[in-house]
């Protein structure tokens, strides 16, 4: 077929009637969108650069510049800080996926998806698959750098696997916030600005960078219930030891609530557009 001589103009005589195959399952639809996310890694590998540069900079900056002052030695600080930077990375990366959604919606691509007889949430499930892959890749790179710098997970490989599983759950839950922002806001840069404006207080007024013991009481009462602190405590426990199921449960409250509320909102906004 490919050795047909090239014409100036396309020739549609070869087009035949093609009936639709049996309707695929919702799960199969979602997998196809996951495949799209994987293809994006292949074609746009530089997106990984954006994803890991900020956390790498944070890791190096906090460890070597502030680490000694904050924790007595850079090694002790890295041990404290690394689980937290993983949480921060997952949070920040979710903003980029909201931007990606806003960009996609600005083009006609989602109109095509919406005019296909597929499971309506499949495109979002696919975005989530891509997000989760991004989270795992970024977390692996940061952990590797941590290991090189001297970080040692005290709970071993199982602890790290547990921490990564929890990170995926956190990423999945928090992802809905940025899906909704991506659906509501037409300009991708506004999604980014709003996303970071929302995330900065959450990430910095938490126990990621410092022990909240030295903070004023009013701030500490926020930091103690800040979902980001709860997540960090759980991840830290899983990787550094001393974690409990209760910690993990507390860390999962916010992602579960967000999913329960915003997944239906996402669907509604998507259908209404």
């Amino acid at each position, binding site marked *: *077929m490919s050795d047909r001589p090239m014409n100036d103009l*396309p020739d549609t005589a070869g*087009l*035949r009637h093609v009936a639709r195959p049996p309707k695929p399952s919702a799960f199969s639809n979602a997998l196809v969108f996951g495949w799209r996310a994987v293809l994006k890694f292949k074609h746009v590998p530089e997106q990984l650069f954006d994803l890991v540069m900020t956390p790498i900079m944070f890791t190096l900056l906090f460890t070597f510049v502030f680490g000694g002052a904050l924790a007595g030695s850079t090694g002790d600080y890295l041990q404290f800080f690394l689980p937290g930077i993983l949480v921060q990375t997952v949070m920040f990366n979710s903003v980029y996926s909201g931007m990606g959604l806003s960009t996609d919606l600005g083009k006609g691509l989602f109109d095509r998806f919406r005019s296909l007889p597929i499971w309506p949430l499949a495109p979002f499930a696919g975005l989530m698959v891509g997000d989760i892959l991004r989270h795992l890749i970024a977390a692996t790179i940061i952990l590797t750098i941590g290991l090189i710098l001297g970080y040692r997970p005290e709970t071993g490989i199982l602890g790290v696997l547990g921490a990564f599983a929890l990170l995926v759950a956190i990423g999945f839950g928090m992802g809905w916030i940025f899906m909704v922002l991506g659906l509501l806001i037409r300009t991708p840069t506004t999604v980014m600005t709003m996303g970071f404006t929302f995330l900065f207080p959450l990430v910095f007024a938490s126990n990621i960078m410092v022990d909240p013991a030295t903070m004023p009481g009013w701030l500490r009462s926020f930091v103690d219930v800040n979902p980001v602190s709860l997540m960090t405590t759980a991840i830290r426990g899983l990787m550094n030891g001393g974690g409990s199921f209760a910690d993990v449960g507390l860390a999962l409250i916010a992602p579960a609530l967000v999913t329960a509320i915003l997944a239906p909102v996402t669907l509604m906004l998507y259908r209404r557009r």
Partner: protein
Amino acid sequence: MTSDAYRESAPEPAIVAKGLIKRFGDVTAVAGIDLIVPRGMIFAILGPNGAGKTTLMRMLATLTVPDGGAATVMGHDLTAAPDAVRSAIAMTGQFASLDEDLTGRENLILIARLWGFKGRAARERGDELLAAFDLSDAATKQVKDYSGGMRRRLDIAASLIVTPGVLFLDEPTTGLDPKARQGVWRMIRGLADSGVTILLTTQYLEEADQLASRIAVIDHGRKIAEGTSRELKAATGSGFLHVALADPGHLDRAAAVLEEQLQSSVQRSAEGATLSIIAKSPEAANAALATLIADGIALADFSMGQPTLDEVFFALTGERTTTDMPEREAAE
């Protein structure tokens, strides 16, 4: 994999719409439009920017929910069975509905797999369409490196993974160069020959004239005329009288004389000192010319011709489609 299922379906029209309405806040984009599109036809919706063409099409393609009215597409009710409608249609929007980061081939495979084609079948269907649309050579290039014409072709190919009952094309040639436009036109004709019903919107009168068996003219959210291109031209009168003046200073006087003589409104061309007006008969045109000359208005040239669709559109709406006319109240 044959056309039997398609051919055996009931011969009711592909699209039946009654009183479709869509409002965006205070703006009524579509203000009650009826439409019957028979199967296998190329049907054009013609109108200027902002007339409501795209909104009408998006409602019929289940992308926008109507605020009023009802419609069936290939026998399926738009609001009661949107998924059945989606199974029977494909839409190529005004902005390429492609993933720019993926290759042309990956784009087609993506859509094929969403329809339910499995691995190899999806790849084969993609390659088949790439060949049919002369894109085999660009199959492994990212879509962001495609030219406008190639994108349009790939976009339409993506709409044909499963042969649709109705193909919606929203301004299929806007922004294309003349050669690419000819290519898309040929493709559309080929599809119609193979039995696909095509509803397209356009703001180019030539495009509607060239492609469509029937044309609905839409302005300000309402259908103001419908028929074949010949019927629309005939409705405007037997022909147009075009007059070029020797002295542009006589423009106003000449316009007044022509309007009085022919009982119709004059269209002025901004560039030259030319006037066009509907003449009911050659005799009436002759008499009007005689009056002009008797009044001492010298003519550089005059001619009598069939109205073009452009003139038809002007007569119907009081607006030129290609140029902006300051006085738009004329016809309303």
